């Protein structure tokens, strides 16, 4: 099919700009497309729709505080961090890394220090991917392995899951159907990955 016909049907060029053969084909298309309008199914939504929907909603259990907490656990709002907060967290992380370097190393064998517990913050990841059969998260916080698998229990195409991430600024991607690396369209920020793609960037603050 001629590209000009597509462009004409897309409203980009008038029929006058087409060749004679093109104008003939465009006329055929106009008649066929008109028949979709003319012969298409019509009808208003049934009058019972509103009441039936509301009856089903009324039959759902009331969501108390516990229910809302469960809602949040299952479908929590995505974590969003402002660029300012991201900058502060990044500066904080840089400071934490720099500080131990100035501390004198202990001399001789001493009592074995208890390892500092590693703090993690559970971050909610969410991706709308209705056609996907699996979605995972891979980032610098898990060695870029798609090991954190998201779930879509009710099959509405919204995949979500909570992933433990240490405080700091992290790059990540979604891995759809185990093969397709996809950038989070709702990320707080982005950075080039050096291979022509963009990683999503997430800033995680401490929970304390």
């Amino acid at each position, binding site marked *: 099919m001629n590209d000009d016909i597509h462009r004409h049907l897309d409203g980009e060029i008038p029929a006058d700009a087409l060749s004679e053969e093109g104008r003939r084909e465009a006329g055929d298309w106009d008649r066929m497309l008109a028949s979709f309008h003319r012969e298409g199914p019509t009808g208003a939504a049934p009058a019972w729709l509103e009441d039936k929907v509301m009856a089903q*909603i009324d039959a759902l259990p009331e969501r108390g505080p516990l229910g809302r907490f469960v809602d949040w656990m299952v479908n929590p709002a995505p974590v969003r961090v402002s660029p300012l907060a991201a900058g502060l967290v990044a500066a904080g992380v840089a400071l934490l890394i720099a500080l131990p370097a100035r501390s004198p190393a202990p001399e001789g064998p001493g009592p074995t220090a208890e390892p500092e517990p590693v703090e993690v913050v559970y971050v909610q990841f969410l991706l709308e991917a209705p056609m996907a059969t699996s979605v995972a998260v891979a980032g610098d916080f898990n060695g870029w392995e798609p090991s954190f698998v998201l779930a879509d229990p009710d099959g509405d195409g919204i995949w979500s899951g909570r992933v433990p991430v240490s405080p700091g600024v992290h790059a990540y991607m979604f891995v759809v159907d185990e093969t397709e690396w996809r950038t989070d369209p709702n990320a707080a920020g982005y950075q080039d990955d050096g291979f022509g793609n963009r990683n999503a960037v997430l800033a995680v603050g401490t929970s304390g």
Partner: protein
Amino acid sequence: MAPVERSDAQVVRDVLSGDRDAYRLLVRRYGEVLHGHALRMTNSPDEAADLVQRALVKGYRKLSTCREPERVGAWLFRILANLCKDHVRSPRRADVSMTRLAGALRSGSDPEADAEGAEIRTKVWGALDALTPEQREAFVLKHVEGRTYEEIAAVMDLSVAALKMRVHRAREALRGLLEEYA
């Protein structure tokens, strides 16, 4: 003074605060648009009503995940569109769609014209079953519902370029029908 109509964002906030009856406003605002799309995707009033009902109930249950409450109508549309595509894709539905087609479409009062019209309708709308659900959706939104690419892209969360490609492929697939109109 006329009462101020609550915005979509306010309705969403009210529902999430526990006023579940406020959701009725969203059903009224978007029920017809959703039903029209479902009807054009399924060619069946019964199936369309069932899909819209499921989409609206699902929308209520998932309302806390709606990231842009001021665009809750587009969000509900996406839920419905996904249900429609899954429905069109289901093998059981494909078996019965053609036999149900003529009866589901509008009919006239002249039996002869009605028979001829039914034949055209079956050809035209039956041809859509040859498309993938994604192509069918894009074609219906563009050429039947008459939306612009920009509108569709905003609602479906796709790029204009990706949408154009789907519509172009749908046209290529439907090109055989052109002989009927030449």
